């Protein structure tokens, strides 16, 4: 999938473009699914996130090492961009440039106070609790999936997460897929059912 050459440890922009151009149908789909998963938590479009990641890869803003799979690289770029966009949305600076005389020296930068007021914090907390309950409700019929979900949300991963449920690697992968599929169906675009 990814051209490998001796010499420099980073792919050139031409090589990155070539590597993306020859992605398989499954890889294109994979990238879009990753973008949708990352966009679910914030109000931006998967296509925009994907395009931004491609742009940063193509113009060399983000560089891919030769040892890294290009799809994993792009997924990492998307994760980083999504995180930045989410933080920017949370800050909501609502900046505006005001010029009264038209002179550059007279530009005034006005920044809204971004500290959330108590009502906003309360509303966000309530919404998060409601969402968590709704996600768990998707798995009321599946005790193992329920437990796995709890482990994931508590920050467990890998063998530790598997040992929580006593599943083999294959069973674990299968259960994790079931969780993803149900969530995909219940929340195809964002965390709104």
């Amino acid at each position, binding site marked *: 999938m990814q051209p490998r050459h001796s010499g420099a440890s980073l792919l050139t922009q031409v090589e990155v*473009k070539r590597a*993306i*151009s020859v992605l*398989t*149908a*499954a*890889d*294109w*789909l*994979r*990238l*879009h*699914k*990753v*973008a*949708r*998963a*990352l966009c*679910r*938590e914030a109000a931006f479009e*998967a*296509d925009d996130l*994907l*395009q*931004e990641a*491609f*742009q940063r890869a*193509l*113009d060399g803003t983000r560089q891919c090492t030769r040892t890294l799979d290009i*799809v*994993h690289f792009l*997924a990492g770029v998307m*994760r980083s961009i999504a995180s930045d966009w989410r933080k920017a949305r*949370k800050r909501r600076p609502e900046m505006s440039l005001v010029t009264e005389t038209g002179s550059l020296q007279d530009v005034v930068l006005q920044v809204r106070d971004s500290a*959330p007021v108590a009502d906003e*914090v309360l509303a*966000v*907390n309530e919404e*998060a*609790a409601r*969402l*968590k309950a709704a*996600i768990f409700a998707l798995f009321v019929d599946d005790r193992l999936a329920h437990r796995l*979900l709890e482990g*994931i*949300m*508590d*920050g467990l*991963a890998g063998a530790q997460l598997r040992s929580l449920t006593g599943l083999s690697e294959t069973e674990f*992968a299968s259960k*994790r*897929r079931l*969780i*993803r*599929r149900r*969530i*995909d169906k219940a929340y195809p675009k964002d*965390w709104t059912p």
Partner: protein
Amino acid sequence: MSQKNKGQSSRLDRLTDTLVEDILACSDADLLAEAAADNDDGGTLARRAFERASRTVAVRHIARNKSPPPGRRQAPANIRALDPNTARGWLDAYLASNPETAGQLPRAVRRGKKLSDEDVYGMLEALQQRGVLTEKPIEQSRR
């Protein structure tokens, strides 16, 4: 943001990370089967996003290459900001370093005679437009 709110956000972040992990680990066959079952055209949308990104990057690249290289100025009006002696000095310097061009000019012109200020400015502007005139910082030689 309160600790509780942070906690709820990171819970969802962890879930999202796990979902992404699963997508990356999923076999090609399983992904394609899912897409067929869901009537998911994400693959096409991803290709389109790539095409848009490629066009944007190409347009930016062209725009960047159009800007003048460091040390050269493209705006012809800047030449008119030179005082006549400095302009003559620039032309002389150019002709001295480009004897093949100087050789094509009439002898009197080569000696700097019969050239009005307007001629000098006109020649410098022509050289500037061709991108062959190396300019000095214009602030040091303003009229």
